[in-house]
């Protein structure tokens, strides 16, 4: 079931990301959509903290995919620069593996992404306020969403 969470500032984004990050499992997929500056990379940095990734997680916009080692590997992807939805960037190699895939601007390559995933829309409501719409596709992701009610 879809869940909406109101966020007041950057710190709350990080807290929410950590809560979700703690529930991730090998092969988990998170897709992120939201305007420039909405906080997609900030959210991913929070997830990385939950996975005990110590390296700096910075924007993958130009390199498209960045990999990090942690409790689970993190594959941080960004489709911002992709113009052809079907361009083969080798993204499918990363799905169904042992790591976690986070895909920013996911809607630009949605046909390349497996159906089962946790989708998050970040809506800008004010300078620091954001509305997170969290939409689970598949049982495992429903479970993550339900857990968010209890934390």
């Amino acid at each position: 079931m879809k869940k909406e969470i109101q966020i007041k500032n950057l710190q709350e984004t990080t807290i929410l990301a950590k809560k979700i990050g703690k529930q991730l499992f090998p092969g988990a997929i998170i897709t992120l959509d939201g305007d420039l500056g909405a906080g997609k990379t900030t959210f991913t940095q929070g997830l990385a903290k939950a996975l005990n990734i110590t390296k700096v997680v910075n924007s993958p916009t130009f390199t498209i995919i960045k990999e990090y080692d942690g409790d689970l590997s993190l594959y941080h992807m960004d489709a911002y620069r992709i113009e052809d939805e079907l361009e083969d960037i080798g993204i499918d190699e990363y799905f169904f593996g042992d790591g976690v895939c986070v895909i920013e601007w996911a809607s630009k390559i949605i046909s390349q992404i497996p159906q089962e995933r946790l989708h998050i829309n970040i809506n800008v409501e004010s300078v620091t306020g954001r509305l997170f719409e969290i939409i689970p596709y598949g049982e495992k992701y429903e479970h993550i969403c339900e857990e968010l009610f209890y934390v």
Partner: protein
Amino acid sequence: MNDIVVLAIESSCDETSAAVIKNGTEVMSNIVSSQIDIHKKFGGVVPEVASRHHVENITLVLDAAIKEANCNINDITCVAVTKGPGLIGSLLVGINAAKAFAFSHDLPIVGVHHIAGHIYANNLVENLEFPSLALVVSGGHTELVLMEDHNSFNIIGKTRDDAVGEAYDKVARVVNLTYPGGPQIDRLAKSGRETYKLPRVMLNQDNYDFSFSGLKSAVINLVHNANQRNESINIENLAKSFQESVVDILVGKTLKALKNYNVKQLLLAGGVAANSDLRARLQVEMKNYSHIKLIIPPLKYCTDNAAMIGVAGTFAYLNGVRDDLSLNGKASLEL
């Protein structure tokens, strides 16, 4: 001493490129896929020369690089190739081409880090002297790298979020400029004044790290608020205000590093090295550091190209670096 002639290949990002470099200083050829009309030049079986179409481009740029260098294949000492970081599918096109060439001509292979290449572009202007400090500024990277010797790289500062070139492109998009945004903002800034107050994130912190995400957000908010109030934005002044903030941060952090590290050269590297205010400010500031030589490579060696990989490959080869046919690409590779 025999000449060292390196055939170099770069395919880590959008460009497919091949080059032939002599002795780490002389560019015999440097072919970049986006700079040539492959249709026209080769009578074209290539449907489209778009970005990241490395497979279609690779043999054409290799062929062109060898022809233009006008060298005998027997004169080639080794093959240098970018092994990372970058998209793995893109890297592997270059790496496999390098392997095929090396195998068929019985040559050693030298894998090169993409950022090492950007830094070594400076050696085409003047021989590197150590220690030296490199400011690497591009679409994907913003780093301060200290070099104590050839092939020795110590990243003393890096961006914690967006790279500077990326901030340029995203700000350009917010004000409806076309891609790539950097050159356009630079051009508009020339006729603008700094009238908008924008932050200098992390400038006064006691480290060499950068952050451009907050600056990007500040511009987005500024434009958004103006739109809501039906006020118009002076685009030239916004461009100048943004650029001043960027240059303050880049130059401020670089000077901070120069005060603490006793270097002989300051090297500028990466595509943002084309920025006119960045160049001008560095040239002015460096007058106060007469013992440090500022080097800025020509623009064609600042954006992604194989010549820089050939130069870095030459010095790696001289230092004994050898890879074999098991060389693999790595998406996230440490410098």
